[in-house]
C-alpha cells in the first residue's frame, strides 16, 4: 500500500480505495476519505463494521491493507484503552518518543492541559480510568498533531467521566485546531463533537453528511433529535 506524508493545503488526510480482507471476509471494500485541516469527522458503524480496522490503516498500523493513504507529517492516536506503558511514570509516558531540548517541559505542559499537572510522577497503575485516558490524550497532544485519530476513546469510561472528556476534547480542539477522526458507536457523541459524520456499512462509506448545528451543542438543541433519529436509522436501529 502506498503511503505518503507530505502536507496539502486543503486536506490533512486523503485515503483512496482502501481495502482490507481477513481470509475470505472482506471488511473494507474500497473506502475513499478526505479530512480537511481542523475538521472533526465522526466515523460511525455497527459492531464489526470495520471502523477500527479503517482507523488502524489510517494510523499506519496495518501493512497488509490495500489502497493509498496520504498522512500529515504529525498525527497521533488515542485508543479505547489508555495503552500507557505500566513501567514508565506518567511524565515519561507522555514524553515517549519525543525529541528535542525541552521534552519534559512540553510533556508537563500537555499534562497541565488535560487537567493533571500534579500526577507527573505517578505510575499508570495508580490512576483512575478517566485519568489514564487523559494522560493518553496528553501523550497524543504533546506531538502537536495536525490530525488526531481516536478509536472509541471514551467508550470504556463511565457516563459522567465520558461527558467531562467530551468537554475536554471540545476545549482542546478550540485551542489547538487539530483535525480529528473519531471512531465511535455513540450517535450522541458524534453529534456533539463532529463537523461531519460518516457511516460505514458493508465495507463502504454509505453516508457522509455535515452536522448543521452551532456550537456549543447540547442534546436538547432543536434539530439534534432529528439528526439523531436519522443516524440511528442509518445504523439499523429504528425507534
Amino acid at each position, binding site marked *: 500500500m502506498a503511503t505518503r506524508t507530505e502536507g496539502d493545503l486543503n486536506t490533512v488526510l486523503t485515503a483512496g480505495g482502501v481495502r482490507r480482507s481477513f481470509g475470505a471476509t472482506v471488511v473494507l471494500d474500497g473506502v475513499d476519505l478526505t479530512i480537511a485541516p481542523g475538521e472533526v469527522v465522526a466515523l460511525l458503524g455497527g459492531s464489526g463494521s470495520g471502523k477500527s480496522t479503517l482507523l488502524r490503516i489510517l494510523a499506519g498500523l496495518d501493512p497488509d491493507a490495500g489502497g493509498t493513504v496520504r498522512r500529515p507529517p504529525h498525527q497521533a492516536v488515542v485508543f479505547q*484503552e489508555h495503552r500507557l506503558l505500566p*513501567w514508565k511514570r506518567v511524565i515519561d509516558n507522555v514524553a515517549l518518543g519525543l525529541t528535542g531540548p525541552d521534552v519534559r517541559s512540553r510533556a508537563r505542559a500537555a499534562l497541565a492541559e488535560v487537567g493533571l499537572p500534579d500526577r507527573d510522577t505517578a505510575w499508570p497503575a495508580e490512576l483512575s480510568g478517566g485519568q489514564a485516558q487523559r494522560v493518553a490524550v496528553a501523550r497524543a497532544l504533546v506531538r502537536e498533531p495536525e490530525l488526531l485519530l481516536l478509536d472509541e476513546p471514551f467508550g470504556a469510561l463511565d457516563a459522567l467521566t465520558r461527558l467531562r472528556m467530551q468537554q475536554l476534547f471540545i476545549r482542546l480542539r478550540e485551542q489547538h485546531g487539530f483535525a480529528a477522526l473519531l471512531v465511535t458507536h455513540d450517535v450522541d457523541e458524534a453529534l456533539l463533537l463532529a463537523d461531519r459524520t460518516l457511516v460505514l456499512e458493508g465495507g463502504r462509506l454509505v453516508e457522509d453528511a455535515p452536522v448543521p448545528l452551532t456550537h456549543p451543542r447540547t442534546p436538547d438543541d432543536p434539530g439534534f433529535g432529528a439528526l439523531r433519529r436519522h443516524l440511528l436509522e442509518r445504523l439499523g436501529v429504528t425507534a
Partner: protein
Amino acid sequence: MTAAPRTAAPAAVRTTPAGTAAPGRADRPRSGRRVLRLVSPVALLATWEAAARTGLLPPEKLPAPSAVLRTGWRLAGDGTLAVHLLDSLQRAAIGLAVGGGLALLLGALAGLLRTGDDLVDPPVQMARMLPHLGLVPLLIIWVGIGEELKVTLVALGSFFPIYFNTYAGIRDIDERLVEAARTCGLGHLARLRHVVLPGALPSLFLGLRLAIGAAWLSLVVGEQVNAQTGIGFLMMEAREFAQTDVVLLGLLVYALLGLLSDLLLRIAERRTLSWRRGLKAT
C-alpha cells in the same frame, strides 16, 4: 477489528513469586503466626542436639548441630572455607554467565523473530527433555574431568530456565502496547528498549532465580567429580576421613548460598520493578 480489552497487565499475573506465601491472610496476628511457625524447626534442632549429646545418635553418623557450627567456625578461622567457597563461587559465576548469556541471546532470537523461533526453538525443546545431570558421563568423555566439566554443567543447568523465561517474557508482552509505541514514533530499537525489555524483565528475573537454583544443584554434582577445591570437594574429602561434621557443614554452606543468592535477587527485583508496587501503593 478491536481486540477484546484485557484489563490485567500481562506482567501482573506473576506478582507473587513461587515459593512465597500469598499476602493478605491476616486471619491470625502476623507476629504470633511467625512465632508459631518457628516452633517445629526449633524443636527438631533441639531434639537432634539432645540426641547427639546423649549418644543416641553416633557422632560418625550425625554429629550435633553445635559440633557442625564449631567445625564451621574452625574452618572459617584458618581460611580453608574461604578458599573452597571462592572456587565454588567462581565456577558458578562463570557457568551462569556462559549459560545465561547464551540463553538470553537465543531466547531473544526465538522470541522476537519468527525465523529465530523456527530455527532455535525445536532443538532447544528437544534438548530440554534430557536431564542435564545425566549427561555427566558424556561430558567427561567430551571435556574431561577438570574445571570445564563443572562450568559446563552449571552452564547447562542455568541455560534452560533463562531461555524459556526470556522467550515467554517477550511473547507475553501486550501487542497493543507495542502498537501504541509505534504510533508515538518509536523505531525497532527504541521499542526494544522502552517496551520489550521492561515488559520482559519480570520474566527475566524469574528465569534468573530458577537458573541460580539450577546452578547450585549442578555445582553440587560437578564438584563431586575429581575436584581439588570447592565445597563439593571439601565434602568428598571429609567423607573419606569420616568427618561427618564437615560433610554437614558443606550442605549448610550450599543451602546458605542458595538462600543468600535468592535474597539478593529479590532485593534487586523489588528495586527494578518498583512500578509494580504502584498497584498496591494507593
